[in-house]
């Protein structure tokens, strides 16, 4: 009997299967998000099905508060928590190398440690590799040196992620990708539809059973802020190489017009997410990775804040230390993309694309 409540230790995937089978016999939560309609496609759940459901889940927690089977009920459902655990385990399992993911997904202190190491290294590099000529930042680190360091630090993690997402796609049996699927998935992500609660009033993250749109707002500030900063860097690269225009750029230039608002949004978003994380009930998420997730949010904030500070400090003696901090945070963010919460964006998008490619859930029974 699947509901035998004798306390045996189930793996996260087995426990998720036990819970999802109960869920699938109820279906009251169908309107909250993409997970529940997706669930109704089958009666039996293979490991890959559970991986997919877990990565579709945005941890809005609506289903937890609406559930009549949460503890102390003997069915003891906690769907947001068990899917969060399966999700993190899938990121650890699919990462290459897995060991790094296990360390950095779980331990915030590991990320902080890496940051210190990288920071020290940047200071060392700045003192040893300091160029004879150059203005602005390039007085401290030559442009070519920066490129030589950051291009591999950016590209290699992306390659690792690409390999992992390919493995994910196989595990969840994603099939062929059509453009319409990608557009649908992007539409969901750009509006963060799965944190809307289904009624547009948001989720149950930090206010218990009351709805709040704060998490969606802060997430989107962070995400769009990050994308703007990324766009700023890309534009600057084009200006540097194709137009011969070197940094520093004035305020009314494309890199600054994109980067300054982007940085401000990231700082506000990351501060908001960190604050929400402090207020939210940890037992409804993957409790063991709370510290690392918090460290990641703070890292995002630090990247943006140090970038803005660097801009503000132009011409002063603070440029060198701020530059070091900024470069170090960016470097850690890049290096840890496959091994930190940052990877969620890739898997989540993959899950949304896969979901969009599946046949519309069919009605069963009655």
């Amino acid at each position, binding site marked *: *009997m*699947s*509901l035998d409540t004798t306390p045996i230790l189930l793996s996260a995937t087995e426990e998720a299967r036990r819970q999802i*089978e*109960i869920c*699938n*016999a*109820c*279906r*009251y*939560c*169908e*309107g*909250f998000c993409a997970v529940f*309609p997706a669930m*109704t496609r089958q*009666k039996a759940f293979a490991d890959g099905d559970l991986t997919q459901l877990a990565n579709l889940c945005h941890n809005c927690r*609506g*289903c937890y*508060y*609406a*559930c*009549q*089977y*949460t*503890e*102390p*009920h*003997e*069915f003891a459902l906690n769907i947001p928590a068990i899917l969060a655990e399966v999700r993190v385990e899938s990121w650890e399992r699919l990462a290459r190398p897995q060991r790094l993911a296990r360390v950095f997904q779980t331990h915030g202190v590991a990320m902080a440690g890496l940051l210190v190491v990288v920071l020290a290294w940047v200071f060392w590099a700045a003192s040893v590799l300091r160029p004879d000529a150059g203005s602005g930042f390039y007085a401290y680190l030559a442009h070519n040196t920066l490129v030589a360091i950051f291009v591999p630090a950016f590209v290699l993690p992306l390659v690792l992620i690409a390999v992992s997402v390919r493995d994910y796609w196989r595990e969840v049996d994603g099939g062929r990708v059509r453009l319409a699927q990608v557009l649908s998935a992007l539409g969901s992500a750009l509006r963060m539809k799965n944190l809307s*609660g*289904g*009624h547009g*009033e948001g989720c149950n993250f930090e206010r218990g*059973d*009351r709805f709040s749109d704060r998490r969606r707002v802060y997430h989107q500030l962070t995400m769009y802020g990050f994308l703007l900063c990324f766009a700023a860097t890309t534009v600057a690269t084009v200006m540097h190489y194709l137009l011969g225009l070197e940094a520093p750029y004035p305020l009314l230039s494309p890199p600054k017009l994109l980067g300054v608002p982007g940085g401000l949004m990231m700082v506000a978003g990351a501060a908001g997410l960190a604050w929400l994380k402090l207020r939210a009930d940890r037992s409804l998420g993957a409790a063991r990775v709370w510290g690392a997730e918090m460290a990641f949010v703070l890292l995002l904030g630090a990247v943006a804040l140090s970038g803005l500070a660097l801009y503000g400090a132009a011409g002063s003696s603070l440029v060198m230390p701020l530059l070091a901090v900024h470069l170090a945070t960016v470097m850690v963010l890049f290096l840890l993309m496959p091994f930190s919460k940052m990877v969620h964006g890739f898997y989540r998008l993959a899950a949304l694309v896969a979901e969009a490619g599946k046949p519309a*859930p*069919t*009605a*069963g*029974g*009655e």
Partner: protein
Amino acid sequence: MTDWPKTFDLVVVGGGNAALCAAITAAEAGASVLILESAPIAYRGGNSRHTRNFRCMHKGPASPLTGCYEEEEYLQDLMLVTKGKTDEGLARLAIRSSEDCLPWMKAHGVRFQPSLSGTLSLSRTNAFFLGGGKALVNAYYNTAEDLGVKVAYEAQVTHVHRQGDRISHVEAEIQGRPRTIKARAFVLASGGFQADIDWLARAWGPAARNFLIRGTPYNRGVVLRDMLDQGAASVGDPTQCHAVAIDGRAPKYDGGIVTRLDCVPFSIVLNNDGQRFYDEGEDVWPKRYAIWGRLVAAQPDQVGYALIDAKSIDLFMPSVFPPVTAETIEGLASKLGLDPKAVRRTVEGFNAACRPGRFHPTELDGLATEGLEVPKTNWARPLDTPPYYGYQLRPGVTFTYLGLKVDARAQVHGAEGPIRNLWAAGEIMAGSILGQGYLAGFGMTIGTVFGRIAGKEAAAHVA
């Protein structure tokens, strides 16, 4: 409890949908309100936490409802299930008022969703709560809290003290401590008595000890019993309860929706002796599930066994418990604890009585057996494709019919006439309208309509 006034304007006994509708309505009219909920906070909301929709009259499309569903059709549906055992005046009042309830519910935090998968047949008549009944209950508690309503959990009212034609106070145990609570008006919305197995056994007979209770273990009818002992006017058959056939492995209490089994029309159902006892294909399941509780209750040990084969396993909603599975009929019978020979004989007899024809799972296909003493009149296909599957069935009690008789103002009456400051709403008075049978989503309609009436009347009384 330290910030409670000496006397509340209104004390609401119970903490489910009807209680909350009464409390919110009265609080909005300016009354100070206390809710006494017998369950702990995790189980608050009575049977409302297991509900999922609300049957609603509407003259045109009203999100999330499609088409229209007018008073006469609604009433006809009610007449059909109750076989006329209703108070037509109260029934019409509930039906007519339901239309206004939908916007009221939305304004007080309830969110709706399109009809759930597998329930498309209800998309015109029933509005589904986003997240189900517990989400509705949460929304109402939040609304009530914002209005300053006080709530005491684990607060079991033990006695409603009557002085002449008025209630002076209630006696309660709040978290184990006895308290006397005074108020100027009282609303009783504390549900039926289906969780009191001894009471069920007295009413139904010892067989009731084998029944499962689908909903909250907190509906023990303490307040109902107390009122009946004081001569309050009652309504509804005291020996009857509404029971459906559910998975026999469900927990004794609170198994809720996931314990339902929709497989009967595609199966043959045997009793302990391995014999069939009723036409499994009499009608579509939504129209028949309610009678199967009673049918199984009448069998030895109050148990039945639904047997299906591989052809039919995907035709119904999954149950929360996996079926018992075997490659042979005999193997399945032994796993279910039945006599393999008897089951083999029954299956062979049934298979031989099946006739070729078009099978259609979602409509009455007329595919019937021939020559059986207990025929199967639709969806009769031989059990011949392994693996074979079996589910144990037991009666699951949903609610009881005996309740307080109320008038159109939801007022409770004693032998000498109305009790001036006492109203009732929800399952405790639903027998006034629902004398027999059940209509999906109608319990929530009665609770919402009469909860609001009770709250309004109580607030007017103390104003």
